[in-house]
């Protein structure tokens, strides 16, 4: 039992003080010490003992007493001990200052410490221990250079002074000169081999910093041998174990860490590492507790920063972005330079992205990039931010840099592709393909979303077969194989049920046969896209089975219903289509796409009022933001304007205005909406502003070219209409023909009708008749076309007859043409007895009458022409005879000359007389022929009256022409409208064609006839009720007929497509996010 003996003054006795049993009240001891004037070293010993026992107050009491001026006076010549006491106090306050977290008190402690040391210095300037103490104090204050100077003073005096050596080592360590530090530690150890374990700890740390991990480990282990409870060594070893990054190492490390924690629960480093560990094991509660403790026990900036970082990460991974952001921020605040600890910046950036604060995130990621200029994750994050901020170019730059730095980072290429999708699909596709190759090379599974995106891009670029391969690859193995792989086709005959659009029996059968009918959720989109592609490839049967497969498993997949409805619609099965759309509406009553489609179908069914309501509902369902619904309503109004039978001008104007307003509304929302532009241009054309509308059409046409999904034949037709209205027939013809070939496989009889009408106006009768025949061939049941053909033939014949010069062949052709016309008209008149085609029998009869009349006239013409031909022939004959006669006469004269016979002369005279008679007869013949001519002329005059009539008609026609051009424009507009509608339809995939067709159907027959009648002047005469308005109506009818349907069909795919794309994007984005998290974790 250790004890000290305090010599009793003036005696030989000693007071024995048991060190283990020091009195609680230090004053007792102090009294003794003072009373006995005990040597100062005893004071020190006792104070130290108090300190060791943790009785700091007593320690301080004794020392402060020992440093009091009284003592100074009393022990004035005992310098060393006094210095020792002062130094002890200095050291104590240095320590207090060092561990104090509050800045003000910290300062106070340091000031006190400085005072004590200064006092010690005053006693002896050269006392090394004072210098050492000062050095320590300076170190604690962070004034490394001054500390170094202090230690140096000591070492200059005694180069083996251990505390100075240690201090200097510490200085060098802090300066980052680890090898120098190591040298100093080593020297200290040589000088004082039994020095405390801490020296070896220093050695270990130096070695560790120098990268000599084995030696470091040995040093730490030695420390532990000497002092099994040395927390620092334990922590150091544990960190080394953890760094080893092997399961065994980590486990060993954690054991050590835990032991360190048990030994001393307030070591911030250990706490942080433990927290780190529990973060990875997912025990977030422990993480928070540990880091909070760590934060409470340390004020060391980097350590705190680490703790905050741990805490933030924990919240980040739990998805509590707000809290995570706060802690990341706290962590960042503890860091003076980003170089020291950059992770929290990264985390903060991520959280800010999540919270939408892109600008702050940007600056944080830029800081990370300063430290790690080649960090791909950071580059990708920055790229993402720039894209979000709308600086797409910069985004591209960063992501491209990332792909350059690590050309094997499939993820980077994937993101690059996503960035490029909007701007440059070709480059996007390349990026995706690279990503795919990289995934494959890396032996990883290619993400389904990636394949899906590749497929969609290929689809969009028209590389259908490639897209099919890609989608199939994405789908992999599954029940769907049995529906489209040819090998299996015979085993499961899907074809039989292709028409039963709602038939799920097929799948039930498969299930009951032991097949597993399963569609993983992540493959639904791909399956849908494949089905869309099959539709595009015209394999609608298979597509329908796939859609039904989707619905079998996911009965809420509205798009599949809508596609099935679209297929049914393409097959003209309107009722089924409506049924399917209603199924979709059962899933979501407000689905705007389904409502729009329903509206279109109702229009097709001629349900105008219902359709308008449905379209309104669709528009309301999206707060008027769905341009398709708005455009549909615009089209509805346009049709209403053009359609009205009574042609109420007021109503027409209102409808037109309304239509224009709706188009304009769409244009305001989406300035690039082709269909709205088209619609607006149609309204312009309707109002006669052809130049404006032509400009717009031309722009729309240009914009619409280039994508598989945007097909706008309407705009072509509208342009052609405008050309037509402006009298530029050649261009109009070209436009119509191109449109027909490009979009309709030459199957659209309506466009043929436009074409015929253009030929008619251009007076190219043969072309007109041929074109009409083609149209009849395509649409045999459209009797209007026949009527038109009849009219064209009639007109052709009439115009031939009016010609000043004509050959008999021409006249013959005319007669044939008229006969054909009569036949056609009489057939029509017979047919109209059978069916209701809207033909006015009377009118047909008039035509028949007129044609027969023309025919009889033509027959006369023919006769005349033929007679003329005969006469010409006769004349030739006559001339020949005359020549013969002359010849005979010459011969006779010769004879006369030879014979010189008078009698014969007489005979000659006789012959001459005879000849003269002959001549007379010929003359008479001539006369009679002129007479007949005259008769003919009278015939002509008849014709003339007819002509006159016609001329009257012609006048009317001129008037008509006005109206006609009007009409034309209207037609053009109508067409345009149609086109617009089609566009609208694109948007929603459905609909607008029907209205037009219906209108056509309704009006076309009557109007079409009227229109044709309008073409023929005589018709105008015939038609009492045929004022210009009817004609115009007719024309409109013509124009209306234009063709919305095809467009609609095409458009719908686009929509879906885009939807798909969005979905896939979403998925991909999610993935990205996961990856980010992952990268965090790695860090």
């Amino acid at each position, binding site marked *: 039992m250790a004890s000290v003996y305090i010599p009793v003054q003036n005696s030989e006795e000693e007071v024995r003080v048991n060190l283990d049993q020091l009195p609680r009240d230090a004053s007792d001891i102090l009294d003794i010490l003072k009373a006995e004037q005990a040597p100062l070293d005893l004071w020190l010993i006792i104070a130290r003992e108090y300190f060791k026992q943790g009785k700091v107050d007593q320690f301080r009491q004794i020392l402060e007493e020992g440093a009091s001026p009284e003592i100074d006076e009393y022990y004035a010549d005992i310098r060393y001990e006094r210095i020792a006491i002062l130094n002890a106090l200095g050291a104590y306050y240095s320590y207090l200052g060092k561990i104090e977290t509050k800045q003000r008190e910290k300062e106070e402690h340091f000031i006190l410490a400085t005072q004590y040391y200064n006092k010690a210095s005053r006693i002896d300037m050269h006392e090394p221990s004072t210098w050492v103490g000062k050095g320590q104090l300076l170190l604690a204050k962070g004034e490394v250079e001054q500390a170094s100077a202090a230690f140096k003073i000591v070492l200059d005096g005694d180069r083996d002074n251990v505390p100075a050596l240690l201090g200097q080592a510490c200085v060098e360590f802090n300066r980052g000169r680890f090898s120098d530090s190591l040298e100093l530690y080593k020297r200290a150890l040589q000088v004082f081999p039994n020095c405390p374990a801490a020296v070896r700890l220093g050695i270990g740390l130096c070695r560790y910093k120098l990268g000599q991990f084995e030696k470091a480990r040995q040093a730490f282990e030695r420390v532990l041998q000497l002092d099994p409870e040395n927390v620092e060594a334990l922590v150091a070893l544990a960190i080394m174990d953890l760094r080893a990054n092997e399961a065994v190492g980590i486990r060993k490390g954690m054991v050590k860490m835990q032991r360190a924690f048990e030994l001393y629960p307030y070591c911030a480093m250990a706490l942080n590492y433990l927290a780190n560990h529990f973060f990875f094991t997912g025990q977030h509660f422990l993480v928070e507790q540990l880091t909070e403790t760590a934060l409470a026990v340390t004020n060391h900036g980097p350590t705190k920063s680490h703790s905050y970082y741990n805490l933030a990460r924990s919240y980040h991974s739990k998805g509590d972005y707000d809290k995570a952001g706060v802690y990341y921020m706290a962590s960042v605040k503890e860091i003076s330079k980003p170089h020291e600890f950059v992770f929290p910046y990264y985390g903060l950036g991520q959280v800010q992205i999540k919270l939408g604060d892109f600008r702050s995130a940007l600056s944080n990621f830029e800081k990370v990039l300063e430290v790690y200029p080649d960090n791909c994750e950071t580059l990708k994050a920055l790229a993402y931010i720039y894209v979000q901020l709308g600086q797409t170019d910069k985004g591209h730059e960063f992501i491209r840099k990332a792909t350059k730095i690590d050309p094997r980072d499939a993820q980077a290429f994937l993101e690059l592709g996503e960035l490029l999708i909007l701007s440059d699909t070709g480059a996007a596709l390349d990026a995706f393909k690279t990503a795919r190759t990289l995934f494959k090379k890396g032996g990883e599974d290619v993400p389904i979303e990636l394949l899906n995106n590749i497929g969609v891009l290929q689809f969009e670029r028209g590389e259908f077969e490639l897209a099919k391969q890609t989608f199939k690859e994405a789908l992999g193995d599954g029940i769907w194989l049995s529906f489209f792989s*040819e090998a299996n*086709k*015979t085993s499961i*005959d899907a*074809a*039989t049920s*292709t*028409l039963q659009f709602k038939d799920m029996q097929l799948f039930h059968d498969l299930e009951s046969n032991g097949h597993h009918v399963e569609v993983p959720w992540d493959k639904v989109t791909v399956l849908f896209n494949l089905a869309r592609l099959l539709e595009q*490839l*015209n*394999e*609608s*049967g*298979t597509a329908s089975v796939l859609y039904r497969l989707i619905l079998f498993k996911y009965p809420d997949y509205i798009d599949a219903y809508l596609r099935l409805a679209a297929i049914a619609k*393409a*097959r*003209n*099965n*309107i009722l089924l289509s409506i049924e399917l759309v209603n199924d979709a509406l059962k899933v979501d009553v407000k689905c705007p796409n389904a409502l729009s489609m329903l509206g279109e179908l109702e229009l097709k069914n*001629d349900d105008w009022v219902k359709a308008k309501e449905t379209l309104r509902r669709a528009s309301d369902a999206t707060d008027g933001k769905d341009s398709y619904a708005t455009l549909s309503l615009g089209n509805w109004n346009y049709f209403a304007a053009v359609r009205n039978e009574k042609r109420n001008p007021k109503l027409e104007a209102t409808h037109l205005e309304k239509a224009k307003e709706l188009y304009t509304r769409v244009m305001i929302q989406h300035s690039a909406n082709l269909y709205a532009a088209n619609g607006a241009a149609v309204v312009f054309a309707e109002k006669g502003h052809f130049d404006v509308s032509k400009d717009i059409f031309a722009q729309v046409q240009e914009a619409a070219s280039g994508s598989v999904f945007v097909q706008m034949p309407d705009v072509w037709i509208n342009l052609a209409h405008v050309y037509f209205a402006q009298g530029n027939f050649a261009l109009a013809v070209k436009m119509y023909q191109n449109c027909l070939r490009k979009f*309709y*496989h*030459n*199957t659209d009889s309506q466009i043929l009708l436009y074409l015929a009408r253009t030929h008619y106006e251009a007076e190219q009768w043969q072309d007109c008749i*041929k074109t009409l*025949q*083609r149209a*009849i*061939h395509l*649409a*045999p*049941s*459209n*009797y209007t076309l026949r009527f038109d053909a009849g009219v064209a033939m009639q007109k052709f014949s009439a115009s031939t007859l009016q010609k000043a010069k004509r050959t008999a062949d021409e006249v013959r052709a005319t007669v*044939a043409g008229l*006969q*054909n016309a009569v*036949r*056609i008209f009489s*057939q029509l008149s*017979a*047919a109209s*007895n*059978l*069916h*209701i*085609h809207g033909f006015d029998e009377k009118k047909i009869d008039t035509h028949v009458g007129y044609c027969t009349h023309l025919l009889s006239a033509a027959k006369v013409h023919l006769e005349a022409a033929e007679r003329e031909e005969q006469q010409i022939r006769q004349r030739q004959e006559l001339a020949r005879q005359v020549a013969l006669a002359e010849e005979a006469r010459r011969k006779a004269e010769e004879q006369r000359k030879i014979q010189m016979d008078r009698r014969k002369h007489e005979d000659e005279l006789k012959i001459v007389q005879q000849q003269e008679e002959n001549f007379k007869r010929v003359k008479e013949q001539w006369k009679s022929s002129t007479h007949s001519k005259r008769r003919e002329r009278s015939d002509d005059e008849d014709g003339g009256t007819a002509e006159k009539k016609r001329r009257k008609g012609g006048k009317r026609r001129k008037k008509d022409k006005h109206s006609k051009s009007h009409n034309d424009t209207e037609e053009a507009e109508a067409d345009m409208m149609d086109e617009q509608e089609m566009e609208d339809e694109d948007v929603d995939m459905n609909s607008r064609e029907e209205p037009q067709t219906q209108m056509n*159907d309704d009006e076309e*027959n009557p109007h079409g006839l009227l229109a044709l009648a309008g073409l023929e002047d005589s018709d105008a005469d015939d038609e009492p009720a045929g004022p210009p308005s009817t004609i115009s109506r007719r024309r409109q009818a013509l124009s209306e007929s234009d063709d919305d349907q095809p467009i609609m069909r095409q458009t719908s795919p686009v929509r879906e497509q885009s939807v798909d794309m969005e979905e896939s994007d979403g998925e991909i984005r999610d993935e990205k996010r996961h990856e980010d998290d992952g990268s965090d974790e790695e860090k």
Partner: protein
Amino acid sequence: MKLAGIKSIDNAHDDSVWAVTWAPATATRPPLLLTGSLDETVRLWKSDDLVLERTNTGHCLGVASVAAHPLGSIAASSSLDSFVRVFDVDSNATIATLEAPPSEVWQMRFDPKGAILAVAGGGSASVNLWDTSTWELVVTLSIPRVEGPKPSDKSGSKKFVLSVAWSPDGKRLACGSMDGTISVFDVQRAKFLHHLEGHFMPVRSLVYSPYDPRLLFSASDDGNVHMYDAEGKALVGTMSGHASWVLCVDVSPDGAAIATGSSDRTVRLWDLNMRASVQTMSNHTDQVWGVAFRPPGGNDVRSGRLASVSDDKSISLYDYS
């Protein structure tokens, strides 16, 4: 099974070629190819070189259909003016001129025995049968009016008869109409049997399998080819693939394949076992209005031939094997 192009004649007619058929070989000559065109002529071609044998004039409007008697000596052509001209294939002598107003004339087909000529009557919703010895109208097979809930019958949805086909035994006659329905008649009893449903767009061409009197193929504007059990009223299968209207269909003499022509400018060959398109010929530059397999008979029975005609004014001949 495949097609190999043998020869194509560009500008075989002055305008679109709309109709094609084979006049079978007779004792004195090999089979001839007959084509009808918008240029109002019918032309006869010697295979395999497609040498123009003769040009028949006489129609006033485009020739929409040609049909040849199974014995090969007689043929009929019809144009949009709804006259049917029956003529001697070898001499071009007119045998008869048929018309049955107000019926129009669309597709025509001789029955397998050659006793009757069936003529699709368009808007009259009927098929007219003409006796081929007297050239008198035997009977008119009318499609019964459907008591539909659709009073506002549009012109497109009427039973406008476009196409006809004879079953190989000559007992059944099927006709296709604008609204997509196919009607089946019992010829002997002159009785309407039933409709075949599935198409909703015009059926422009029909053909029975040469071996199975129940199996009927139909081509429709909806882009699909349907296979029906014409007796059982059942849709047996559909084949999709054409990008536009399917305008014509013909079945190969061996019954293993069908060929179709479409507005998408292609001719497709379909394997009936696989029910899939096995080949697509894209040599035409406009819609293909007619395809016709050469009937067996004559000297070189074994080599199959397919002819196709198109709006591009050309005729193409393929080897089918």
